[in-house]
Protein backbone atom coordinates (compact mmCIF):
# COMPACT_ATOMS: atom_id res chain seq x y z
CA UNK A 1 0.00 0.00 0.00
CA UNK A 2 1.39 3.46 -0.90
CA UNK A 3 0.68 6.75 0.83
CA UNK A 4 -2.16 7.72 -1.51
CA UNK A 5 -3.93 4.44 -0.95
CA UNK A 6 -3.34 4.76 2.78
CA UNK A 7 -4.82 8.27 2.91
CA UNK A 8 -7.84 7.20 0.91
CA UNK A 9 -8.45 4.30 3.26
CA UNK A 10 -7.81 6.60 6.23
CA UNK A 11 -10.39 9.05 4.96
CA UNK A 12 -13.04 6.36 4.59
CA UNK A 13 -12.16 3.86 7.34
CA UNK A 14 -9.74 5.30 9.90
CA UNK A 15 -10.09 2.31 12.24
CA UNK A 16 -9.31 -0.20 9.51
CA UNK A 17 -7.47 -3.33 10.69
CA UNK A 18 -6.43 -4.26 7.15
CA UNK A 19 -2.91 -5.74 7.18
CA UNK A 20 -1.50 -3.53 4.41
CA UNK A 21 -2.99 -0.44 6.02
CA UNK A 22 -1.47 -1.20 9.42
CA UNK A 23 1.89 -2.14 7.85
CA UNK A 24 2.12 1.15 5.90
CA UNK A 25 1.40 3.15 9.02
CA UNK A 26 4.23 1.36 10.79
CA UNK A 27 6.75 2.31 8.14
CA UNK A 28 5.60 5.84 7.09
CA UNK A 29 6.02 8.64 9.66
CA UNK A 30 3.87 11.14 7.70
CA UNK A 31 1.00 8.71 7.37
CA UNK A 32 1.31 7.75 11.07
CA UNK A 33 0.90 11.46 11.86
CA UNK A 34 -2.12 11.66 9.60
CA UNK A 35 -3.59 8.66 11.40
CA UNK A 36 -3.05 10.42 14.73
CA UNK A 37 -4.95 13.52 13.53
CA UNK A 38 -7.62 11.36 11.97
CA UNK A 39 -8.13 9.47 15.25
CA UNK A 40 -8.48 12.75 17.09
CA UNK A 41 -11.11 13.91 14.62
CA UNK A 42 -12.86 10.53 14.84
CA UNK A 43 -13.11 11.00 18.60
CA UNK A 44 -14.90 14.31 18.03
CA UNK A 45 -17.27 12.75 15.50
CA UNK A 46 -18.00 9.89 17.89
CA UNK A 47 -18.84 12.29 20.72
CA UNK A 48 -21.04 14.36 18.43
CA UNK A 49 -22.90 11.38 17.06
CA UNK A 50 -23.33 9.80 20.48
CA UNK A 51 -26.35 11.88 21.44
CA UNK A 52 -27.69 11.23 24.93
CA UNK A 53 -30.28 8.48 24.91
CA UNK A 54 -33.44 9.06 26.97
CA UNK A 55 -33.27 7.88 30.56
CA UNK A 56 -34.84 4.47 31.25
CA UNK A 57 -35.19 3.75 27.53
CA UNK A 58 -34.29 0.08 28.07
CA UNK A 59 -36.76 -0.24 30.96
CA UNK A 60 -39.54 1.28 28.89
CA UNK A 61 -38.83 -1.10 26.01
CA UNK A 62 -38.84 -4.08 28.38
CA UNK A 63 -42.11 -2.92 29.92
CA UNK A 64 -43.66 -2.62 26.45
CA UNK A 65 -42.40 -6.08 25.57
CA UNK A 66 -43.72 -7.78 28.72
CA UNK A 67 -47.06 -6.00 28.30
CA UNK A 68 -47.29 -7.15 24.70
CA UNK A 69 -46.35 -10.70 25.72
CA UNK A 70 -49.09 -10.79 28.33
CA UNK A 71 -51.66 -9.32 25.93
CA UNK A 72 -50.69 -11.83 23.32
CA UNK A 73 -50.99 -14.70 25.84
CA UNK A 74 -54.42 -13.40 26.86
CA UNK A 75 -55.49 -13.07 23.22
CA UNK A 76 -54.25 -16.60 22.61
CA UNK A 77 -56.46 -17.83 25.48
CA UNK A 78 -59.37 -15.83 24.07
CA UNK A 79 -58.63 -17.30 20.67
CA UNK A 80 -58.82 -20.77 22.18
CA UNK A 81 -62.16 -20.03 23.81
CA UNK A 82 -63.49 -18.57 20.54
CA UNK A 83 -62.15 -21.61 18.69
CA UNK A 84 -63.87 -23.97 21.16
CA UNK A 85 -67.17 -22.12 20.81
CA UNK A 86 -66.85 -22.16 17.02
CA UNK A 87 -66.03 -25.88 17.09
CA UNK A 88 -69.04 -26.60 19.31
CA UNK A 89 -71.24 -24.52 17.02
CA UNK A 90 -69.91 -26.42 14.02
CA UNK A 91 -70.77 -29.74 15.66
CA UNK A 92 -74.31 -28.52 16.35
CA UNK A 93 -74.67 -27.26 12.77
CA UNK A 94 -73.31 -30.55 11.44
CA UNK A 95 -75.70 -32.51 13.64
CA UNK A 96 -78.65 -30.44 12.46
CA UNK A 97 -77.47 -30.83 8.86
CA UNK A 98 -77.31 -34.63 9.29
CA UNK A 99 -80.80 -34.63 10.72
CA UNK A 100 -82.11 -32.60 7.84
CA UNK A 101 -82.96 -34.23 4.53
CA UNK A 102 -79.94 -34.51 2.25
CA UNK A 103 -79.69 -32.02 -0.64
CA UNK A 104 -80.42 -34.61 -3.37
CA UNK A 105 -83.62 -35.65 -1.63
CA UNK A 106 -86.74 -34.00 -3.10
CA UNK A 107 -88.49 -31.59 -0.78
CA UNK A 108 -91.67 -33.63 -0.77
CA UNK A 109 -89.82 -36.79 0.25
CA UNK A 110 -88.15 -34.72 2.99
CA UNK A 111 -91.54 -33.71 4.35
CA UNK A 112 -92.64 -37.35 4.32
CA UNK A 113 -89.39 -38.33 6.06
CA UNK A 114 -90.00 -35.76 8.80
CA UNK A 115 -93.56 -37.05 9.19
CA UNK A 116 -92.24 -40.63 9.55
CA UNK A 117 -89.82 -39.46 12.25
CA UNK A 118 -92.74 -38.09 14.23
CA UNK A 119 -95.13 -40.93 13.49
CA UNK A 120 -96.42 -42.84 16.51
CA UNK A 121 -96.77 -46.21 14.68
CA UNK A 122 -93.53 -47.83 13.67
CA UNK A 123 -93.36 -49.67 10.34
CA UNK A 124 -91.79 -52.72 11.96
CA UNK A 125 -94.63 -53.00 14.49
CA UNK A 126 -97.26 -53.42 11.76
CA UNK A 127 -97.09 -57.04 10.63
CA UNK A 128 -100.78 -57.93 10.14
CA UNK A 129 -102.58 -57.24 6.86
CA UNK A 130 -105.52 -54.90 7.21
CA UNK A 131 -108.81 -55.18 5.28
CA UNK A 132 -108.53 -53.67 1.82
CA UNK A 133 -111.75 -51.79 2.41
CA UNK A 134 -109.90 -49.66 4.98
CA UNK A 135 -107.46 -48.59 2.27
CA UNK A 136 -110.26 -47.90 -0.18
CA UNK A 137 -112.02 -45.75 2.41
CA UNK A 138 -108.87 -43.85 3.35
CA UNK A 139 -108.26 -42.98 -0.30
CA UNK A 140 -111.89 -42.19 -0.82
CA UNK A 141 -111.81 -39.70 2.03
CA UNK A 142 -108.88 -38.06 0.23
CA UNK A 143 -111.06 -37.82 -2.87
CA UNK A 144 -109.59 -40.75 -4.79
CA UNK A 145 -111.41 -43.89 -5.88
CA UNK A 146 -109.30 -47.00 -6.05
CA UNK A 147 -110.48 -49.75 -8.42
CA UNK A 148 -108.33 -52.20 -6.53
CA UNK A 149 -105.79 -52.30 -3.73
CA UNK A 150 -102.36 -53.97 -3.77
CA UNK A 151 -101.91 -56.94 -1.48
CA UNK A 152 -100.07 -56.82 1.83
CA UNK A 153 -100.93 -53.45 3.33
CA UNK A 154 -100.45 -53.67 7.08
CA UNK A 155 -101.39 -50.14 8.07
CA UNK A 156 -103.28 -47.20 6.66
CA UNK A 157 -103.96 -43.73 8.01
CA UNK A 158 -104.69 -40.32 6.64
CA UNK A 159 -101.71 -38.20 7.67
CA UNK A 160 -100.34 -34.75 6.84
CA UNK A 161 -96.89 -34.23 5.34
CA UNK A 162 -96.01 -30.59 5.57
CA UNK A 163 -98.92 -28.70 4.00
CA UNK A 164 -100.05 -31.72 1.95
CA UNK A 165 -102.64 -34.44 2.52
CA UNK A 166 -101.50 -38.04 2.33
CA UNK A 167 -102.57 -41.63 2.75
CA UNK A 168 -99.91 -43.28 4.84
CA UNK A 169 -99.48 -47.06 4.47
CA UNK A 170 -97.05 -49.77 5.48
CA UNK A 171 -96.28 -52.57 3.04
CA UNK A 172 -93.87 -55.40 3.78
CA UNK A 173 -91.85 -56.46 0.75
CA UNK A 174 -89.63 -59.56 1.03
CA UNK A 175 -89.68 -59.24 4.82
CA UNK A 176 -88.79 -55.54 4.81
CA UNK A 177 -91.39 -53.05 5.99
CA UNK A 178 -91.76 -50.20 3.50
CA UNK A 179 -93.49 -46.96 4.40
CA UNK A 180 -95.62 -46.01 1.41
CA UNK A 181 -97.14 -42.56 1.44
CA UNK A 182 -99.39 -41.31 -1.30
CA UNK A 183 -99.39 -37.51 -1.37
CA UNK A 184 -102.72 -36.59 -2.82
CA UNK A 185 -102.31 -32.96 -3.75
CA UNK A 186 -98.69 -32.64 -4.87
CA UNK A 187 -97.32 -34.17 -8.04
CA UNK A 188 -93.56 -34.86 -8.34
CA UNK A 189 -91.68 -33.54 -11.33
CA UNK A 190 -90.01 -36.88 -12.02
CA UNK A 191 -89.08 -40.25 -10.57
CA UNK A 192 -86.21 -39.96 -8.10
CA UNK A 193 -84.23 -42.40 -5.98
CA UNK A 194 -82.32 -41.09 -2.97
CA UNK A 195 -80.96 -42.09 0.39
CA UNK A 196 -80.83 -40.37 3.72
CA UNK A 197 -79.79 -41.26 7.24
CA UNK A 198 -79.26 -44.95 6.38
CA UNK A 199 -82.59 -45.27 4.56
CA UNK A 200 -83.40 -45.51 0.88
CA UNK A 201 -86.24 -43.60 -0.68
CA UNK A 202 -88.09 -43.24 -3.94
CA UNK A 203 -90.53 -40.61 -5.12
CA UNK A 204 -92.62 -41.08 -8.25
CA UNK A 205 -95.31 -39.00 -9.88
CA UNK A 206 -98.51 -41.04 -9.73
CA UNK A 207 -101.96 -39.94 -10.78
CA UNK A 208 -102.44 -36.36 -9.69
CA UNK A 209 -100.19 -36.88 -6.69
CA UNK A 210 -96.97 -38.59 -5.75
CA UNK A 211 -96.03 -41.89 -4.20
CA UNK A 212 -93.16 -41.71 -1.72
CA UNK A 213 -91.53 -44.86 -0.35
CA UNK A 214 -89.06 -45.12 2.50
CA UNK A 215 -87.36 -48.31 3.69
CA UNK A 216 -84.07 -49.85 4.67
CA UNK A 217 -81.55 -50.36 1.89
CA UNK A 218 -82.63 -53.82 0.80
CA UNK A 219 -86.31 -52.99 0.11
CA UNK A 220 -87.76 -53.76 -3.34
CA UNK A 221 -89.39 -50.52 -4.41
CA UNK A 222 -89.90 -51.74 -7.98
CA UNK A 223 -92.56 -54.29 -6.99
CA UNK A 224 -94.49 -51.77 -4.90
CA UNK A 225 -94.21 -49.09 -7.59
CA UNK A 226 -95.45 -51.52 -10.19
CA UNK A 227 -98.45 -52.60 -8.11
CA UNK A 228 -99.45 -49.01 -7.34
CA UNK A 229 -99.10 -47.92 -10.97
CA UNK A 230 -101.36 -50.77 -11.91
CA UNK A 231 -103.93 -49.83 -9.27
CA UNK A 232 -103.87 -46.13 -10.01
CA UNK A 233 -104.31 -46.79 -13.70
CA UNK A 234 -107.73 -48.14 -12.86
CA UNK A 235 -108.57 -45.34 -10.45
CA UNK A 236 -110.86 -42.41 -10.96
CA UNK A 237 -111.66 -39.42 -8.82
CA UNK A 238 -114.67 -39.74 -6.56
CA UNK A 239 -117.71 -37.59 -6.17
CA UNK A 240 -117.31 -36.02 -2.73
CA UNK A 241 -119.00 -38.15 -0.04
CA UNK A 242 -119.06 -41.37 -2.12
CA UNK A 243 -117.27 -44.51 -0.90
CA UNK A 244 -116.57 -47.39 -3.28
CA UNK A 245 -116.69 -51.04 -2.22
CA UNK A 246 -114.11 -53.69 -2.97
CA UNK A 247 -115.20 -57.13 -4.08
CA UNK A 248 -112.74 -60.00 -4.23
CA UNK A 249 -109.02 -60.00 -3.59
CA UNK A 250 -108.16 -57.46 -6.32
CA UNK A 251 -111.29 -55.43 -5.70
CA UNK A 252 -114.01 -54.50 -8.20
CA UNK A 253 -115.71 -51.17 -8.25
CA UNK A 254 -119.42 -51.03 -7.76
CA UNK A 255 -121.54 -48.11 -8.78
CA UNK A 256 -118.89 -46.80 -11.12
CA UNK A 257 -121.42 -44.42 -12.70
CA UNK A 258 -121.06 -42.10 -9.72
CA UNK A 259 -117.38 -41.44 -10.58
CA UNK A 260 -116.68 -38.44 -12.67
CA UNK A 261 -113.20 -38.65 -14.07
CA UNK A 262 -110.49 -41.16 -14.41
CA UNK A 263 -107.09 -40.59 -12.79
CA UNK A 264 -104.39 -40.52 -15.38
CA UNK A 265 -101.67 -43.07 -15.00
CA UNK A 266 -98.14 -41.63 -15.05
Amino acid at each position, binding site marked *: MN*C*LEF*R*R*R*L*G*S*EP*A*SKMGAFVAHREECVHCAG*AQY*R*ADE*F*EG*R*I*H*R*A*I*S*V*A*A*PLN*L*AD*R*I*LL*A*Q*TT*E*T*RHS*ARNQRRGWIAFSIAAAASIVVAFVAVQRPSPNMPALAGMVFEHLQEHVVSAVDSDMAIPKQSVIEAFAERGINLASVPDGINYVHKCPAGPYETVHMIMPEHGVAVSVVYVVDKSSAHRTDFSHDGLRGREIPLGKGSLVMWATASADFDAIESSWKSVMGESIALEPGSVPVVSGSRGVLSGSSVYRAALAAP
Partner: protein
Amino acid sequence: MKPVSASMSSRQHQFEALVRGHSTDLYRYAYWLCGQDALAQDLVQDTFLRAWRALDKLREVGAVKAWLITILRREHARLFERKAMPSDDIDDLDLPDPQATPERRTEESALRQAIAKLDPKYREPLVLQVLGGFTCAEIAEQLGLGEAAVMTQLFRARQKLKGQLGFEDQTAEVSEL
Protein backbone atom coordinates in the same frame (compact mmCIF):
# COMPACT_ATOMS: atom_id res chain seq x y z
CA MET B 1 -43.88 -9.84 37.33
CA LYS B 2 -43.69 -13.58 36.98
CA PRO B 3 -42.42 -15.06 33.73
CA VAL B 4 -45.10 -16.56 31.51
CA SER B 5 -43.41 -19.93 31.69
CA ALA B 6 -40.09 -21.50 32.60
CA SER B 7 -39.01 -21.76 28.96
CA MET B 8 -39.92 -18.11 28.41
CA SER B 9 -37.66 -17.10 31.24
CA SER B 10 -34.33 -17.84 29.53
CA ARG B 11 -35.61 -16.23 26.32
CA GLN B 12 -36.65 -13.23 28.38
CA HIS B 13 -33.19 -12.98 29.93
CA GLN B 14 -31.58 -13.13 26.51
CA PHE B 15 -33.88 -10.39 25.31
CA GLU B 16 -33.20 -8.21 28.33
CA ALA B 17 -29.47 -8.49 27.68
CA LEU B 18 -30.06 -7.40 24.08
CA VAL B 19 -32.11 -4.40 25.09
CA ARG B 20 -29.73 -3.24 27.79
CA GLY B 21 -26.70 -3.79 25.57
CA HIS B 22 -27.94 -2.18 22.36
CA SER B 23 -30.82 0.20 23.03
CA THR B 24 -28.61 3.27 23.41
CA ASP B 25 -26.69 2.79 20.16
CA LEU B 26 -29.88 1.83 18.39
CA TYR B 27 -31.57 5.00 19.64
CA ARG B 28 -28.64 7.08 18.40
CA TYR B 29 -28.76 5.42 15.01
CA ALA B 30 -32.54 5.92 14.85
CA TYR B 31 -32.13 9.53 15.86
CA TRP B 32 -29.66 10.26 13.05
CA LEU B 33 -31.91 8.36 10.68
CA CYS B 34 -35.14 10.24 11.38
CA GLY B 35 -33.97 13.36 13.23
CA GLN B 36 -36.70 13.29 15.85
CA ASP B 37 -36.35 12.21 19.46
CA ALA B 38 -39.88 10.81 19.97
CA LEU B 39 -39.91 9.06 16.62
CA ALA B 40 -36.49 7.58 17.30
CA GLN B 41 -37.73 6.17 20.61
CA ASP B 42 -40.76 4.65 18.88
CA LEU B 43 -38.56 3.16 16.19
CA VAL B 44 -36.25 1.58 18.76
CA GLN B 45 -39.19 0.18 20.73
CA ASP B 46 -40.82 -1.23 17.58
CA THR B 47 -37.48 -2.68 16.53
CA PHE B 48 -37.04 -4.51 19.81
CA LEU B 49 -40.63 -5.76 19.84
CA ARG B 50 -40.13 -7.16 16.37
CA ALA B 51 -36.80 -8.62 17.47
CA TRP B 52 -38.54 -10.28 20.44
CA ARG B 53 -41.01 -11.98 18.15
CA ALA B 54 -38.21 -13.14 15.84
CA LEU B 55 -35.65 -13.93 18.54
CA ASP B 56 -35.67 -17.64 17.71
CA LYS B 57 -34.40 -16.80 14.23
CA LEU B 58 -31.26 -15.18 15.63
CA ARG B 59 -28.57 -17.82 15.17
CA GLU B 60 -25.34 -15.80 15.22
CA VAL B 61 -24.98 -13.85 18.45
CA GLY B 62 -22.00 -11.93 17.03
CA ALA B 63 -24.19 -10.46 14.30
CA VAL B 64 -26.88 -9.22 16.66
CA LYS B 65 -26.09 -5.53 16.20
CA ALA B 66 -26.27 -5.77 12.41
CA TRP B 67 -29.50 -7.78 12.80
CA LEU B 68 -31.08 -5.12 15.01
CA ILE B 69 -29.99 -2.32 12.69
CA THR B 70 -31.51 -4.17 9.73
CA ILE B 71 -34.80 -4.45 11.62
CA LEU B 72 -34.68 -0.78 12.53
CA ARG B 73 -33.99 0.30 8.96
CA ARG B 74 -36.99 -1.75 7.79
CA GLU B 75 -39.21 -0.24 10.49
CA HIS B 76 -38.06 3.20 9.38
CA ALA B 77 -38.79 2.35 5.74
CA ARG B 78 -42.29 1.15 6.73
CA LEU B 79 -42.84 4.42 8.53
CA PHE B 80 -41.80 6.29 5.40
CA GLU B 81 -44.24 4.24 3.35
CA ARG B 82 -47.09 5.28 5.64
CA LYS B 83 -46.27 8.98 5.70
CA ALA B 84 -43.65 11.33 4.36
CA MET B 85 -41.19 12.13 7.12
CA PRO B 86 -39.80 15.64 7.51
CA SER B 87 -36.07 15.39 7.05
CA ASP B 88 -35.06 18.87 8.11
CA ASP B 89 -36.10 18.53 11.78
CA ILE B 90 -32.63 17.24 12.50
CA ASP B 91 -31.39 20.83 12.06
CA ASP B 92 -32.95 21.65 15.44
CA LEU B 93 -30.67 19.13 17.07
CA ASP B 94 -29.52 20.12 20.53
CA LEU B 95 -28.82 17.24 22.86
CA PRO B 96 -25.74 18.32 24.80
CA ASP B 97 -23.73 15.96 26.95
CA PRO B 98 -24.33 17.27 30.51
CA GLN B 99 -20.80 16.28 31.57
CA ALA B 100 -19.00 18.11 28.76
CA THR B 101 -17.17 21.41 29.34
CA PRO B 102 -18.71 24.56 27.79
CA GLU B 103 -15.96 24.62 25.11
CA ARG B 104 -16.56 21.02 24.18
CA ARG B 105 -20.32 21.58 24.17
CA THR B 106 -19.91 24.32 21.62
CA GLU B 107 -17.64 22.19 19.47
CA GLU B 108 -19.94 19.16 19.69
CA SER B 109 -22.94 21.28 18.91
CA ALA B 110 -21.22 22.67 15.80
CA LEU B 111 -20.18 19.19 14.70
CA ARG B 112 -23.70 17.85 15.26
CA GLN B 113 -25.10 20.64 13.16
CA ALA B 114 -22.58 19.77 10.48
CA ILE B 115 -23.48 16.07 10.62
CA ALA B 116 -27.16 16.96 10.51
CA LYS B 117 -26.59 19.00 7.37
CA LEU B 118 -24.93 16.10 5.60
CA ASP B 119 -26.89 14.48 2.81
CA PRO B 120 -28.43 11.25 4.21
CA LYS B 121 -26.42 9.19 1.71
CA TYR B 122 -23.24 10.47 3.45
CA ARG B 123 -24.61 10.62 6.98
CA GLU B 124 -26.01 7.09 7.22
CA PRO B 125 -22.81 5.16 6.43
CA LEU B 126 -20.88 7.50 8.69
CA VAL B 127 -23.24 6.89 11.62
CA LEU B 128 -23.19 3.15 10.97
CA GLN B 129 -19.39 3.17 10.99
CA VAL B 130 -18.96 5.35 14.06
CA LEU B 131 -21.73 3.82 16.17
CA GLY B 132 -21.70 0.25 14.92
CA GLY B 133 -17.97 -0.11 14.25
CA PHE B 134 -18.83 -1.74 10.93
CA THR B 135 -16.28 -2.08 8.13
CA CYS B 136 -16.94 -0.61 4.69
CA ALA B 137 -17.83 -4.09 3.43
CA GLU B 138 -20.36 -4.61 6.23
CA ILE B 139 -21.92 -1.19 5.66
CA ALA B 140 -22.11 -1.92 1.94
CA GLU B 141 -24.03 -5.10 2.75
CA GLN B 142 -26.37 -3.28 5.14
CA LEU B 143 -27.16 -0.55 2.64
CA GLY B 144 -27.18 -2.76 -0.43
CA LEU B 145 -24.37 -0.81 -2.07
CA GLY B 146 -20.96 -1.62 -3.45
CA GLU B 147 -17.98 -1.38 -1.10
CA ALA B 148 -16.22 1.18 -3.32
CA ALA B 149 -19.33 3.39 -3.29
CA VAL B 150 -19.47 3.23 0.50
CA MET B 151 -15.78 4.11 0.78
CA THR B 152 -16.33 7.15 -1.43
CA GLN B 153 -19.37 8.26 0.59
CA LEU B 154 -17.47 7.93 3.86
CA PHE B 155 -14.48 9.79 2.52
CA ARG B 156 -16.66 12.61 1.23
CA ALA B 157 -18.67 12.72 4.47
CA ARG B 158 -15.50 13.41 6.45
CA GLN B 159 -14.29 15.93 3.89
CA LYS B 160 -17.57 17.81 4.10
CA LEU B 161 -17.52 17.85 7.90
CA LYS B 162 -13.99 19.19 7.97
CA GLY B 163 -14.90 21.70 5.32
CA GLN B 164 -17.82 22.97 7.38
CA LEU B 165 -15.76 23.17 10.54
CA GLY B 166 -12.70 24.69 8.89
CA PHE B 167 -10.45 21.62 9.21
CA GLU B 168 -8.88 21.50 5.79
CA ASP B 169 -5.66 19.70 6.78
CA GLN B 170 -6.36 16.10 5.78
CA THR B 171 -8.19 17.02 2.59
CA ALA B 172 -5.28 19.22 1.64
CA GLU B 173 -2.84 16.48 2.48
CA VAL B 174 -4.67 13.98 0.28
CA SER B 175 -4.97 16.50 -2.52
CA GLU B 176 -1.25 17.11 -2.36
CA LEU B 177 -0.44 13.39 -2.64
